[in-house]
């Protein structure tokens, strides 16, 4: 990965992902999509369940399972096509250059291991030279960065002893352990309460701003998009149907599906009297 690369952080070109089914034709889940993420940018991928948005993120991470394969296109990270890397090189990209958080904070942490060892693992993989003490300090530091109060105590706990919101913070801490340039968040707030969701969104925004981490944010909820995204990619049945700046999208939705989504949004703001309206 060249250090002085100038293009977008990640660009996905004509990506096709298919799943094998026994005896039948392969199912194309992601069908020739292209988009990019610039450094420090938050790109939201919006779509309903089954639209292929999660598979896109797994394709980028190289974490496809159950017979899923990228069968076409390229995924350029800082100009390097990830699909051309060896398994080992690909692995070294994960966690260090890009990392991921998942929808279910309940199941995305190993129930058998303490929080600190799960975070430490992420550090040790890519920075094996660090001493135990350094790692320990880094763990606490990360927990503090994701605004976990009483970080020392939480570090010694097991996942089931934490609330959903706390777990998602821990996941974010893990994802940030090696200070990746790209964070992929797959519906990270869907399973959370509203107030917790607001906190997690604020946290992601804050990290994006402070550290310049590029974010791909996957969601089905346009109001979350409205809150967080710089740019929006709308997916429908495996294809990208619309891509636009977030303001442009909300002001002038183009595609029928986008419009339908827009209509379905519950609104609470009153049109009149809004101080930000312009």
């Amino acid at each position, binding site marked *: 990965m060249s250090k002085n690369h100038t293009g977008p952080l990640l660009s996905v070109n004509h990506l096709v992902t298919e799943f094998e089914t026994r005896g039948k034709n392969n199912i194309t889940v992601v069908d020739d999509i292209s988009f990019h993420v610039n450094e420090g940018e938050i790109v939201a991928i919006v779509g309903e369940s089954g639209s292929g948005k999660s598979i896109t993120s797994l394709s980028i991470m190289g974490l496809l399972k159950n017979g899923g394969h990228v069968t076409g296109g390229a995924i350029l990270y800082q100009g390097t096509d990830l699909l051309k890397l060896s398994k080992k090189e690909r692995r070294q990209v994960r966690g*260090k250059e890009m990392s991921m958080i998942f929808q279910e904070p309940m199941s995305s942490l*190993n129930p058998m291991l303490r929080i600190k060892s799960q975070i430490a693992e992420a550090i040790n993989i890519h920075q094996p030279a660090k001493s135990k003490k350094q790692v320990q300090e880094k763990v606490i530091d990360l927990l503090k960065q994701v605004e976990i109060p009483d970080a020392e105590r939480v570090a010694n706990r097991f996942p*089931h002893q934490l609330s959903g919101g706390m777990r998602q913070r821990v996941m974010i801490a893990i994802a940030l352990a090696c200070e990746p340039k790209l964070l992929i968040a797959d519906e990270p707030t869907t399973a959370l309460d509203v107030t917790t969701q607001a906190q997690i969104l604020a946290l992601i925004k804050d990290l994006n701003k402070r550290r310049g981490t590029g974010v791909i944010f996957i969601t089905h909820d346009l109001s979350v998009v409205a809150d967080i995204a710089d740019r929006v990619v709308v997916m429908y049945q495996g294809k990208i149907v619309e891509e636009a700046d977030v303001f442009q999208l909300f002001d002038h939705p183009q595609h029928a599906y986008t419009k339908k989504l827009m209509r379905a949004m519950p609104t609470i703001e009153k049109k009149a009297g809004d101080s930000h309206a312009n």
Partner: protein
Amino acid sequence: MSYLKRSLLQVIPSLLLLTVIIFALVYVAGDPVSSMLPENATSEDREILAESLGLNEPFYVQYFQYLRSMVTGDFGTSYQYQRPALELVLERLPATLTLSLMAMLIAIIISIPLGILAALKRNTFVDFLVSGISIVGKAMPNFWIGIMLILFLAVQIQIFPVSGADTPAHFVLPAFTLGVALAAEMTRLVRASVLEVIEEEYVQTARSKGQKESIVISKHVFLNSLIPVVTIVGLQFPQLIGGAIVVETVFAWPGIGRLLLTAIETSDMAIIQTIVFVIAIFTIVVNLLTDLVYRVLDPRIKYN
């Protein structure tokens, strides 16, 4: 601690029910007198002996006598051996337990790597082979396996001794024979369990950290998939002891199973009752232990 107390309390009614079951069975099995007397004894002799053994009392009286003496550690005297039944049983228990534990060890050593291998290579030839072997292993009667092993490994190539219980080498064939079915069962279980765990999101999390696949498996999949396996091992223990009855006969292993068979052949009530009871207690202890292991293994339970 309160958990342990609660479990122990739950055991008591089970044990009581157990004594009723055992006693009822053996009571119906009835007349031990004939086997105690010589071939040409008279019917008066029989009557006198029955009287002296309290065999003419009604069922419930005999049951309470049985229960009372059991509480005091007296499990009755074997007619055949003229010795306290408990003593006889405890004498043999180590042989059977060692054999069962070795069998379990062999089953674990075989099944865990094979199960993981099959799961990781799901739907490949390796998986098919492992699953096939394990199903066949469970479908073969164990005495048949035992006799075959003796014929091939002990008589033909002579790498193991035929029977007896003198040296570690003597353990191999009987423990393997006894462990085959369990190994087969566990292999399937480990495979299924690994397949399930491997689908968990935290495994994806580990991969997304950039962790090596081998470490993902050993650190995140292995331990988590072990939990259901531990439970099954505990549940399988009594069946293992049941299998030992057959295996001990094939391999001339001086354990509890042989004692039981002799006792059954001679209607030696005291021994039968004691064996069933001791095995039941052992099973219960093993189940408690697996429960504890399970609790130690799984922090979700430990810290709640």
